[in-house]
């Protein structure tokens, strides 16, 4: 999957967990820190990870979840995982 495609899908998953009630679409910056800058609670990170796994049909390991500070980190991981899933299916 392309990075911008992943980012767009990620915006839909993360938006409900952001503080505030704005119905406007959001534009995530890859540099934004999910907890420190976007204000996602650590409790909601657990639900976001579950939703990503479900939507992208991938699975994160515990060590993956420690490396998800910035939006770009999450995109990297999704890209790696979807690539390996596609390769596995191709084999």
């Amino acid at each position: 999957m392309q990075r911008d495609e992943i980012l767009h899908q990620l915006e839909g998953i993360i938006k409900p967990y952001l503080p505030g009630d704005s119905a406007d679409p959001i534009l995530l910056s890859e540099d934004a820190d999910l907890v420190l800058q976007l204000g996602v609670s650590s409790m909601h990170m657990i639900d976001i990870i579950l939703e990503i796994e479900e939507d992208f049909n991938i699975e994160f390991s515990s060590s993956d979840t420690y490396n998800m500070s910035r939006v770009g980190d999450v995109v990297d991981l999704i890209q790696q995982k979807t690539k390996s899933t596609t390769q596995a299916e191709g084999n």
Partner: protein
Amino acid sequence: MLKRLSEAQRVVVTGLGVVAPGASDIPSFERLLRQGRSAIQHDPELERLGFGCHISARCTLSQEVLDRYLDALAQRRLRNAALRFALVAALQAYESSGLAEPTDKARARFGVIFGAGLPGIDVLRDGLRDIDDGRVKRLGSAMIQMQMPSSAAAIVAGKLGFAGQVSCNAAACATGTEALCLGIERIRWGLADVLLVGSCESQGAHLWGPFDALGVLCRAFNHAPERASRPLSGQAAGFVPGGGAGALVLESLSHALERGAPIYCEVLGGAVNSGGQRDGGSMTASSPVGIARCIRSALEDARVTGHEVDAIAGHLTATANDAIEVECWSQALGRSGRSFPRINALKSLIGHGLSASGSIELVAAALQLRGRFLHASLNSDDLHPRISGILHEDCIVRESQGSSFQTLAKASFGFGDVNACAILTRWELPSCNETKSFIN
């Protein structure tokens, strides 16, 4: 002689909220009460599952109501009925009180005491299945909140910025009335200015199954749901299961007057106790000695005599215990025959909401006091012979009617032989001079 309470120690009700069978806000609940309308219906799920009881009183929350009180994320995460009922009722109560979010300085004097029964039972199976299937990770973060009895109090306090006592009480079917009693104590001791109190209960087969197994749900009127809940009746055959939530904002009189709050009624006093599972008390029935003592303690705490009680909102579940309850009221108030107070039973309209029942019935009591009416007690036309030997049948409110009564006693009793009783009185706006002295 008892010392008169100061304005800071007197407690008034300044906000109400409710999710009850047949009504999910205060205006529709008041209409149901005034019309004396039954919300009990045939329940196809209970019949399909082989319950003896095929009827129930279920609450429904429209999407409009949910959208008003719960944001999209809360609606997606918090799926259990009890927590949704609690949040809607509590936020309605806060809204109707006209309170603004407390300042940082005042925050610690605002609290929540919100009781619960089995709030997460309707979603528990999903969680257990995930665990048993080795998918513990799939539980996500919401399962804890859906199972925690104190979640309603915690979520409401977080939303409103209340930083005083934030906790949950549990006393089975006495929970709601106990929450109110705990609240008045705290305000009287000067530990809080505002306390949002109430209770909630889930609904559905998983909650009601154990009661059906015990044989305490009504099975004799499956063909006639509206006639099934029969408090005080000779044909009473068990209670009709329900659920929901009730919420009341309690406030010290001085705080309420200072901000010009709407006042529904004053809470004169209350008491909680247990019969110790002696003298006829057991895990499933309250001891008559304990009940009568609880009512007497509430009267004493409220500084009123038995003869000053104009109306009784009974616990009255439509079981054999109704006659025992009426005997206890008679004994504790020292009144019988035609001198017995007017009495009604909300469970005849909306069934038994278990841990939610006390707070929903207190909301009904506050509405009746403010609106000068008493709601109908349905299906009481054939009085139980033991009850007709205690009170004159004219004391039973058979149709909803206007009534300029002043003081009402509300009691709730629960499994474990636990009791709670509160005495409420109509609030009259004091004259200008009196108002001045209240504020000063």
